C-alpha cells in the first residue's frame, strides 16, 4: 500500500471522528478489522511537514495516532529549527481542532450566511471569475499571506489565466524598514539571515529575535550558542530600545533610551568606531560617506537626543570595540516608530564598519518573508479595490481588517457592492466576515504544499491526518477554478511534484517519497552572496536629516506578541492560557507603563485607562513595569478581535486601532508607534489574570545566578550545614541521606533508574514553548480568564519570572515543574497514598486513587500541584487532540507534572523488546523535546555516565530551596550573569 492509500483511509477515519462535530459522538470504540499495513493501534505514525504558523517555516513532525494528529514536534533534520518548536508551533493543532472552525462553505445572502457545498462554492468562484474576466483585464485580484513558491506560482498562473495580475502578498509584519535599509546600504532588497552563533558580541536595536523576528526558533538556538556558557566563557548581548521585550529581558544589559532615538545611539557608535580606526578596509568613498552621516553625534549629543548617559554609552562602545566578531541587529518585528529606517541603516553601517567582510550576514540564505509586499503596495491595492478596479477578490489566510489600522480602507474596499470577495479562511475573522463567499481550504497540517522558510532549502508539507472538515486544498481549488477540466495536472499534489522536479529537488517518485519523509531537501545550494564592492550609498539622503524625537510626550508602541504573533494565534486556547512571560498575564491585553508614568497620572496596576491617539481610542488595564521607558506605553498585538471564535472574540484589546494608517514614505512601511497619546482614567479597575504572586524571590534560594568571574569558586558542592545558604546539594539518591544530621527516615531504594532532570537556567529565554508543549502532551485543562484570576490555572510547567529586587529590569526565568523530590512533603500527608513514590524515584500522582483532600498541594513548598476544580472542557472537536496515552483527569483530583511518564513507559517497552536498558537521552519529556535552546536534560541519575549525572557535578548546580531537604530530582544550574 502506498502512502496515499493510507492517507485516504486515515482520512476516512478522521472523517468518522469529524462526524462527531455535528451529531452525537459514537459511544462505541471500534478497532479496524483490516487496518492499513503501517497502522498499528496504539502506535503512532509520524509525518514530516512544515509549520505555517508564521513565515519562519520550521520543520515539524506530526504524531498521528489512529488517524488523528495529536502532537506536533520539531523535525530534528530541519535546518531552521533542528527539532525544536515555539509555542505557536505547538498550538498549530488547535487550529485544526478549533471548535469555531468553519466546517462548510458559506455564501452571504442578504447579509446572512447560508451553508453551501464545496462543489457549489467552487462553481460560484469559477462563475464569478469568468464573469470578471468578461469585464476586462485585471478584474480578479488576490491578497495572500506569504506562501511557498509553488503555490505562489500556481496563484500567479491562475490569475494570469483570468487575465489578471499576480497576487499581492500581505504580511502585517513585512520588515519594510529593514528591507529598505538593506537596499540602501547593501543593495539587496531582501532579508538576509544572520550567523548569530558565530558572533562574540551582539547588540540589538529592538530586534525581538527570540519572539517573532524573522525566525525566532532558529535565532533562539543561535543566540544561546553564542550567549550560553561555554566552559568559562560567555559572550555579551546588549539590547537598546525604549522598552524591554522578552528578548531585551535576556540581554546582559538593557540600554533604555527615549522613544524614537535608537538611531542616534547607533550613529554615535558609528562615529566613535570610525574615530578609533574601524572600517579602514572599506573603500575610502564609503568610509567618508559614513563619517559624514555620523560625525555630528558625539556622546553628549547622543545623550541629549536619546537620554542614554555618556558613561553607559561608553560601556556599550567599549564592548563593541573589544569584540572580535560583533553583530548588530536592527529594529523589532513591528518596526516601530518614525526612525526605524534610520536605525536599520545605521545598524547596517555599524556592521559594515566593525565587520567589513560582513561575515555574519548571510545573503545567500534569505528569509522567505522578504517576499511579502510592502505596506505601501498593500494600501495601493486596497485603494484600487475601493475605486472598483476589480470584480473578484480572493483572500488567502489574511486578516487585513484586523491587522491594518482603522482608516486603511479595508472595510470600504471589501464592502464595495461590485466586488465579490472570496475568503479561503477556516475562521470567521474580521475580514472573512466582510467576504461574500467563505470557501474554507484545508489547513497546513492537512495539506500538500511546499514552503521554504529560507532560500536554499525546500521544505514540504503533507497531510498529517485526514481532513476534518473535508475542505479542499487551496491549490486544487485554484487549479479547478482557473483551468477547469483542461488543467495541466490533475491536482495540486501533482503540480507540486512537477514544480519540485523542475527545480531539480525531486528526481522521480522514489526520491519524492524520501523528500517527504525527511520533510524536505535541506542541503543548502550555495548561491552568490558576497556583496563587497556592490555597496549602495543611497542612504545618505535618508540620513541627512534623521527624525528627532518629539518633546516630552508619551509614545505608544504596538509590539508583536510571542504568543499571538500578529493576532492569528488568538483563537488558540493554549496560547491565551499560557501567560506572557514578562507580565505573567494571560488572556488579557494590558498596557505596560513605567511606575513613574503611572504615579504622575495617579494610576495603579489594574486600573482601566483610556488611551487616546489621533486615530483611535482604546480601554485597557494598566500593568506596571520598569521594563519600559517612562515616555513609552507598550501593548502587545494579537488580541482584541471582534470575531474569530470564542477564544479570541471580545478578549483583550487590539492596539492597532490606535495606529496611524499613514506610511513612512521612504520604506513604505507602517508605523507601529503612535504619539502623542493621552491617558484618561476611567475610574474602573479589574483584576489582572496574572499567575505570579510576587515578582521577586525574597532571597529564598529559588532562582539563582552567578557572576561569570565567580564560576571558578566552588560553592554548594562543598557546603555542609543545615541553614538556607549552607545546605549542600543533596541528590535524590540513597547516598545523599545522612541519618546523623538531617534525615530521620531511611532512603528510598531505586531499581535500575532514578529519573532526574537538569535545568540550565543560563539557557532559558522564557519563551514558554515548554509550557505549551506540556499542555499539548499531557491533556492539561484550559481554564479561561476568570479562572486564572481566581488562581486556578492548570499549567504543570510554568516559567516563573523573578526580578532582581535592586535592579528590577534584571530578570531571571525559572521553569518550575514538579521537583519529584526523594523526600516529598506531598507523599506523607495524603491519607490514601495518591502521591506515590515509584521505584524509579518518580513522584507519581494516581488520579483514580485521589479523593481530593488537597493536602499534598498545601504541603508542597514548590506549589506545582494543580487541582481539578471543575471538569475542564474540550469543546468538540478539540477533544480529538487529546493524547490517548494520558488520562484526562476528572473534577476533584489533583494532578501535576509526571516527567511525561507515558514516554518513560514507552521507552521501557522498547528497551524490553530489544532486551536492553534504556539509553541515556532516549526519553525526551515534551518540554525538553521542544525547548529551542536546550535548557533541559533528562536521564538516569543512577547511571554514573549519564548526561544528568555529569551535569549535576557542575559548580552551578543547586536545588530550589534545597534547604528544605526535600531532595528534589530537578536540579538547576545557575544563570551566569556578567556586570558590564
Amino acid at each position, binding site marked *: 500500500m502506498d502512502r496515499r492509500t493510507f492517507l485516504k483511509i486515515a482520512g476516512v477515519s478522521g472523517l468518522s471522528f469529524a462526524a462527531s462535530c455535528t451529531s452525537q459522538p459514537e459511544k462505541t470504540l471500534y478497532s479496524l478489522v483490516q487496518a492499513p499495513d503501517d497502522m498499528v493501534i496504539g502506535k503512532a505514525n509520524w509525518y514530516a511537514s512544515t509549520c505555517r504558523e508564521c513565515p519562519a517555516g520550521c520543520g515539524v513532525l506530526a504524531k498521528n495516532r489512529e488517524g488523528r494528529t495529536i502532537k506536533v514536534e520539531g523535525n530534528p533534520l530541519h535546518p531552521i529549527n533542528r527539532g525544536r518548536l515555539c509555542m505557536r508551533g505547538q498550538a498549530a493543532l488547535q487550529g485544526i481542532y478549533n471548535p469555531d472552525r468553519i466546517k462548510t462553505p458559506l455564501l452571504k445572502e442578504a447579509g446572512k450566511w447560508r451553508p453551501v457545498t464545496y462543489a457549489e462554492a467552487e462553481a460560484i468562484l469559477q462563475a464569478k471569475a469568468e464573469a470578471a474576466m468578461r469585464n476586462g483585464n485585471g478584474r480578479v485580484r488576490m491578497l495572500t499571506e506569504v506562501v511557498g513558491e509553488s503555490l505562489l506560482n500556481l496563484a500567479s498562473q491562475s490569475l494570469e489565466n483570468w487575465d489578471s495580475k499576480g497576487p499581492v502578498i500581505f504580511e502585517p509584519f513585512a520588515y519594510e524598514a529593514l528591507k529598505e535599509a538593506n537596499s540602501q546600504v547593501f543593495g539587496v532588497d531582501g532579508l538576509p539571515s544572520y550567523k548569530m552563533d558565530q558572533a562574540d558580541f551582539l547588540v540589538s536595536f529592538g530586534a525581538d529575535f527570540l519572539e517573532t523576528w524573522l525566525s525566532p526558533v532558529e535565532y533562539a538556538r543561535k543566540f544561546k550558542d553564542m550567549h550560553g556558557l561555554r566552559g568559562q566563557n560567555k559572550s555579551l548581548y546588549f539590547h537598546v530600545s525604549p522598552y524591554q521585550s522578552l528578548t531585551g529581558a535576556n540581554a546582559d544589559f538593557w540600554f533604555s533610551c527615549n522613544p524614537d532615538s535608537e538611531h542616534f545611539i547607533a550613529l554615535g557608535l558609528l562615529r566613535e568606531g570610525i574615530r578609533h580606526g574601524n572600517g579602514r578596509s572599506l573603500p575610502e568613498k564609503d568610509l567618508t560617506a559614513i563619517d559624514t552621516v555620523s560625525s555630528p553625534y558625539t556622546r553628549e549629543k547622543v545623550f541629549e537626543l536619546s537620554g542614554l548617559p555618556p558613561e553607559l554609552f561608553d560601556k556599550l562602545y567599549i564592548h563593541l570595540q573589544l569584540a572580535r566578531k560583533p553583530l548588530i541587529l536592527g529594529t523589532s518585528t513591528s518596526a516601530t516608530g518614525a526612525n526605524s529606517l534610520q536605525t536599520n541603516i545605521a545598524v547596517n553601517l555599524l556592521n559594515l564598519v566593525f565587520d567589513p567582510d560582513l561575515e555574519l550576514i548571510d545573503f545567500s540564505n534569505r528569509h522567505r518573508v522578504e517576499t511579502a509586499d510592502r505596506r505601501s503596495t498593500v494600501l495601493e491595492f486596497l485603494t484600487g479595490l475601493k475605486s472598483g478596479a476589480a470584480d473578484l477578490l480572493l483572500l488567502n489566510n489574511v486578516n487585513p481588517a484586523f491587522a491594518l489600522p482603522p482608516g486603511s480602507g479595508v472595510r470600504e474596499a471589501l464592502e464595495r457592492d461590485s466586488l465579490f470577495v472570496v475568503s479561503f479562511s477556516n475562521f470567521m475573522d474580521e475580514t472573512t466576515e466582510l467576504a461574500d463567499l467563505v470557501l474554507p481550504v484545508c489547513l497546513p497540517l492537512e495539506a500538500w504544499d511546499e514552503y521554504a522558510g529560507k532560500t536554499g532549502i525546500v521544505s514540504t508539507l503533507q497531510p498529517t491526518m485526514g481532513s476534518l472538515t473535508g475542505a479542499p486544498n487551496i491549490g486544487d481549488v485554484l487549479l479547478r477554478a482557473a483551468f477547469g477540466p483542461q488543467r495541466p495536472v490533475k491536482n495540486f499534489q501533482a503540480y507540486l511534484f512537477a514544480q519540485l522536479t523542475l527545480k531539480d529537488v525531486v528526481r522521480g517518485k522514489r526520491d519524492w517519497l524520501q523528500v517527504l519523509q525527511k520533510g524536505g531537501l535541506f542541503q543548502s545550494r550555495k548561491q552568490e552572496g558576497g556583496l563587497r564592492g556592490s555597496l549602495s550609498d543611497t542612504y545618505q539622503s535618508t540620513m541627512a536629516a534623521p527624525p528627532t524625537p518629539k518633546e516630552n510626550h508619551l509614545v505608544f508602541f504596538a509590539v508583536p506578541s510571542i504568543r499571538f504573533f500578529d493576532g492569528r494565534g488568538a483563537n488558540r486556547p493554549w496560547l491565551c492560557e499560557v501567560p506572557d512571560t514578562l507580565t505573567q498575564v494571560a488572556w488579557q491585553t494590558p498596557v505596560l507603563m513605567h511606575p513613574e508614568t503611572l504615579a504622575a497620572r495617579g494610576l495603579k496596576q489594574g486600573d482601566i485607562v483610556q488611551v487616546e491617539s489621533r486615530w483611535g481610542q482604546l480601554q485597557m488595564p494598566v500593568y506596571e513595569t520598569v521594563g519600559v521607558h517612562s515616555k513609552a506605553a507598550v501593548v502587545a498585538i494579537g488580541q482584541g478581535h471582534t470575531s474569530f471564535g470564542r477564544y479570541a472574540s471580545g478578549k483583550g484589546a487590539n492596539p492597532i486601532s490606535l495606529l496611524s494608517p499613514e506610511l513612512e514614505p521612504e520604506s513604505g512601511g507602517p508605523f507601529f508607534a503612535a504619539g502623542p497619546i493621552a491617558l484618561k482614567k476611567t475610574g474602573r479597575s479589574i483584576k489582572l489574570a496574572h499567575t505570579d504572586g510576587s515578582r521577586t524571590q525574597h*532571597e529564598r534560594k529559588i532562582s539563582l545566578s552567578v557572576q561569570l568571574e565567580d564560576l571558578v569558586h566552588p560553592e554548594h558542592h562543598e557546603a555542609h550545614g543545615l541553614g538556607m545558604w549552607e545546605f549542600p546539594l543533596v541528590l535524590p539518591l540513597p547516598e545523599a541521606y545522612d541519618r546523623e544530621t538531617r534525615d530521620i527516615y531511611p532512603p528510598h531504594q531505586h531499581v535500575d533508574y532514578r529519573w532526574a532532570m537538569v535545568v540550565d537556567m543560563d539557557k532559558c529565554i522564557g519563551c514558554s514553548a515548554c509550557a505549551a508543549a506540556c499542555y499539548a502532551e499531557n491533556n492539561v485543562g484550559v481554564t479561561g480568564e476568570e479562572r486564572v484570576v481566581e488562581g486556578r490555572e492548570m499549567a504543570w510547567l510554568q516559567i516563573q519570572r523573578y526580578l532582581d529586587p535592586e535592579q528590577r529590569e534584571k530578570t531571571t526565568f525559572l521553569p518550575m515543574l514538579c521537583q519529584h523530590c526523594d523526600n516529598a512533603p506531598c507523599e506523607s500527608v495524603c491519607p*490514601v497514598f495518591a502521591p506515590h513514590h515509584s521505584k524509579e524515584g518518580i513522584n507519581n500522582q494516581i488520579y483514580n486513587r485521589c479523593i481530593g483532600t488537597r493536602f499534598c498541594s498545601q504541603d508542597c513548598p514548590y506549589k506545582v500541584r494543580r487541582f481539578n476544580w471543575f471538569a475542564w472542557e474540550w469543546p468538540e472537536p478539540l477533544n480529538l487532540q487529546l493524547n490517548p496515552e494520558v488520562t484526562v483527569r476528572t473534577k476533584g483530583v489533583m494532578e501535576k507534572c509526571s516527567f511525561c511518564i507515558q514516554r518513560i513507559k514507552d521507552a521501557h517497552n522498547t528497551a524490553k523488546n530489544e532486551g536492553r536498558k534504556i539509553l541515556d537521552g532516549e526519553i525526551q519529556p515534551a518540554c525538553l523535546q521542544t525547548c529551542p535552546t536546550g535548557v533541559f536534560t533528562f536521564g538516569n541519575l543512577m547511571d554514573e555516565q549519564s548526561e544528568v549525572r555529569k551535569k549535576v557535578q557542575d559548580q552551578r548546580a543547586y536545588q530550589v530551596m534545597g534547604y528544605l531537604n526535600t531532595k528534589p530530582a530537578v536540579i538547576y544550574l545557575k544563570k551566569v550573569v556578567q556586570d558590564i
Partner: protein
Amino acid sequence: MSESPQLTYTEIDRTVLDTLSPPSGGYWLIVMVLILGVLAGVACWVYQIFIGIGAGGQNIPVAWGTYLINFVFWVGIAHSGTLISAILYLFRAGWRNPIARAAETMTVFAVSIAGLFPFIHLGRVWVVYYMLPYPNQRYLWPNFQSPLVFDMVAISTYLTVSTLFWYTGMLPDLAVVRDRATGFRRKVFTVISLGWTGKHEQWRHYTRGYLFFAALATPLVISVHSVVSWDFALGIVPGWHSTIFAPYFVAGAIHSGLAMVLTLLIPLRKLFHYERIVTMRILEAVAKTIIFTGLIVGYAYTVEYFLAWYSHNGVEMEAFRWRALGDYSLEFWIMVVCNSIIPLLFFFKKIRTSIPWLFGISILINIGMWYERFVIIIGGVAHGFIPHAWGLYWPSGIEWGIMIGSFSLFFLFFVLFVKHLPSISMTEMKETLDHGGGHGN
C-alpha cells in the same frame, strides 16, 4: 419564680421540667427558619458536588478554605463541653453542674457538625471510603502517616465518647421525665431511659461509670485538638510548622468553647427562667476562665512572633510580618483584639456580671476564634515558600451558604434539644445542693 433564697429539689425539677412543656408558635417559627438555613446549606453542597469544588473560592496556593476553617472552629467549640463536664467534674468544681448538660450537648452537636466538613471539603466525596482501613479489592490501605487519618480516628473517637458520656449523664434525668410524662412521650422516654429505677445498685454503677467516663474523656480534650493542630503543624508550611500548635490549639478551642457556652446559656437562662440555677456566679466563673484561656491564646500569638524572630528564618519572619501587615491584616487584628484583648475586660467585675457585656463579648470571641482559624489556615499557605505562587483567597457564595447551613444545623439541633430533653442536669443540681454548689449567691 420562687422567692426562696435556697433552691429545693422540687424547684429544680419544676424549673427544668417546665422547659419541656409544649412549645409556642414562635418556637416552631424559629425551627422552620433554621430548617430553611439547613436546606440552603444542603443545596449549596449538592451544587458543589455536581459542579466541582471550584464552586468554593479555593485555589492554588490556598487549597483549603472555609470548610476547614469551620471544621477546626466546630471542633474547637466542642472542646469546652468535655472540659466542663469531665475535667471540672474530676476537679470537683461545683459551678460546672448547672451548665454541664448544655455544654456537653453543645459538644456532641458541634463535633457532629465538624465531622461533616471534611466531607464537604473533599474533591471527590463519593470515594471517601478509600480512607477506611478494611481489606478490599482495590488493594488500598490508608496512609497512617497522614495527619488526616489521625484526624479521622481522633474525631470519631471523640464523637463516640462524648455522645456516650452525654447520654450516660442524662439517664437519671430521662427517668425523671419519664415519670412525669404521659402518652407517647412516656413511651419514648421509657425506652431511652433504659429502665432506670433509681435503685441503689444503679446509682452505684452510674456514679462509678460517670467517673470513669470523665477520666476517659479528659485526655481526649487534650488529644483531639492536638491532633487537629497536627493537620497543620506536620506540614512544612511556614506559619504552620511549629511545636506550639498543639497547646495553642487546645487553649484556643477551650477559649472558643467557653464563649459559645455563654452565647448559648445566656438566652437559655433568660427564656427558661434559669436565673436561680445558672446564677451570675456561674457566669462569672466562666468569664474568669475565659480570661485565663484568652491569656494563653494571647501568649501563643506572642510566642509565635518571638519564635519567628528567634529562628532567624527569613521565610518564617516574612510569613509573620505579612500576617500582621499584609493582605489579611484586618483578619489578623480582628483575631488579636477579639481573642486576647477584649476578654481582658472581664477583669472588671462590673463587666463580667453584666449580662449584655457577657453576651456581647462571647459573640466577639466566637468571631475572633473563627478568624484565628482563617488567619492560620489561609494565611499560612497564601504566603508560603515560593513567592511566585503567592495568592489570595476569599470565600465564595457557596461557601457562605454552606457555613450558614452549618450554623443553622447546630442551632436547630440545640433548639430541638432544649425543648425535648432536660437542658440542665437535675441529678447533678440535686447532688450539689447541700454542698453549696447550687446556691444562688
